[in-house]
């Protein structure tokens, strides 16, 4: 029964055209960033940086490097947007359309319904992130020869990996990026459990994420970084560390699971006492 109900939620989610906006925009954005990177001075600048640090540019200007470079920006901006868009829709759109009333005329409990919707949202987020990783790599293969991974964030990180290690790090980063997508979806899902329009749930969640990002990046608040949600959402960057700080990854993982449980429990609490009217 559970799998049938989950299948239904997925049918509903993937039957809508707007669900695919995220997938389509990601591919388009990756293509644009990649083309600009390949055919502008950006790639030669990166090559020069590698050469100046004693590495062979041709070994590291690769699909892995290009995809990491591309997805870094998409994970910051577009991933939260599409995650919150779907999370906000899951409950609030059904309430707005009136189909929620049709569902709740049946003997399914509100907790079970929310759990199904959350799992469907989480599967969407996972799929979206994995697709981001895969298409980034495939598009990168059309522009660069296979090679190692170069990860560079000015003032924060400079790391190079052999192709095998690079692929493992790249895959691990996208798995953790999926946790970010699930968390932002969960935040928007929480707001969607209130009596609000789907757009309001999305905007509220995005506003909180942006606010957290702004606070985290104010130099005077540097000591407070671990208190901000976005600090933990960007956990995926840690797998590009050399060496990997497992303690930091464990802490963020633990906190993100806690955040998600809190968002879900809050959503259930709000939704359970809500009156569902036309």
């Amino acid at each position, binding site marked *: 029964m559970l799998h049938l109900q989950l299948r239904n939620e997925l049918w509903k989610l993937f039957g809508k055209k707007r669900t695919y906006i995220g997938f389509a925009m990601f591919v388009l954005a990756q293509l644009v960033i990649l083309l600009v990177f390949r055919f502008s001075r950006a790639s030669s600048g990166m090559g020069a940086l590698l050469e100046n640090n004693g590495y062979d540019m041709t070994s590291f200007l690769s699909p892995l490097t290009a995809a990491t470079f591309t997805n870094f920006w998409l994970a910051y901006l577009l991933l939260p947007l599409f995650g919150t868009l779907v999370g906000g829709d899951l409950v609030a759109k059904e309430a707005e359309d009136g189909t929620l009333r049709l569902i*709740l005329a049946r003997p399914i409990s509100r907790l079970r319904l929310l759990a199904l919707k959350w799992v469907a949202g989480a599967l969407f987020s996972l799929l979206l992130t994995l697709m981001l990783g895969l298409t980034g790599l495939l598009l990168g293969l059309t522009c660069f020869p296979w090679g190692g991974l170069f990860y560079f964030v000015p003032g924060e990180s400079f790391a190079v990996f052999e192709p095998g290690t690079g692929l493992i790090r790249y895959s691990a980063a996208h798995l953790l990026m999926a946790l970010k997508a699930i968390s932002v979806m969960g935040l928007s899902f929480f707001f969607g459990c209130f009596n609000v329009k789907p757009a309001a749930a999305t905007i509220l969640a995005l506003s909180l994420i942006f606010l957290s990002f702004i606070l985290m990046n104010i130099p005077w608040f540097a000591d407070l970084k671990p208190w901000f949600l976005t600090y933990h959402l960007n956990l995926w960057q840690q797998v590009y560390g050399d060496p990997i700080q497992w303690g930091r990854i464990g802490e963020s993982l633990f906190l993100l699971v806690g955040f998600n449980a809190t968002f879900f429990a809050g959503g259930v609490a709000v939704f359970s006492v809500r009156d569902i009217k036309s």
Partner: protein
Amino acid sequence: MIELRQVTKVFGGRTAVHALDLAVARGEIFGLLGHNGAGKSTTIGMLLGQVWPTSGSVQVCGHDISLQRAKALHRVGAIFETPIFYDYLCGRRNLEILSTYTGITPARRIDEVIEWVGLAGRERAAVRTYSHGMRARLALAQALLPGPELLILDEPTNGLDPEGIHEMRGTIRRLHVELGLTILLSSHLLSEVEQLCSRIAVVHQGRKVFDGTLAETRRTESWIDVELDRFDDAAKGLMAAGWITAVEGGCRMALAPGATVPVVTRWLVENRFEVSGIAREQQTLETFYLSLVKAARADDARN
């Protein structure tokens, strides 16, 4: 099948339903009548566990809806005023989706219901291509899927054309006769209720102002319609004799307590009036409803 005891629902500072008592027996077609905003939909929401009562108890199929919602709704189907579905999916997929919220439904059962409501051949088309009438049939199909004992219909003919209304009315009768369903029909359309229901409750501003059989609403009033020559003379004579208390419109007379149609007829004949016709005035549901609402409004104004 349904029992509401002293149910009250307050939204913010507004009381939508006030101390409502209601009982619907198995096998009845029960009409819940009231103007828009009277509290009918809120009452239905409480019956389905969608709206939580502020106080009182709601029992559906012998189970308390607040405590045993799943058991209470296991054999209940519902249709709402506007048939809304997942438009981008086909009719059959909509039914598959909605049925699993009750339990596992065999494909054969879905086929049967599609056939029963007359949607066979169109069940694979996207719902967005359906006419309003077809959506109403799909709404009926989803309500019938769990094999309900109780069907709750909230303004089921809203938005239908006259032909659609006629068809829906026929379907409701079929459901009652062929499947033996207990039906709660909420409507503000008096003719619909009058043609379908055996018992009704009238709600006004969240309060029940009447609960009884349709026959009771048609009880004869004390007015009679009289066709005769020299109406004014007859009226004066009957008034003097103490058989009537008032006249109206040159053809209506109000009987005095104890007066009957045979008594008045005998008096008219004995006094050589030519009586072409005389009959007690039959009260329609409309006049009954309007008189109830008028009285309720007068009560509200006094309070």
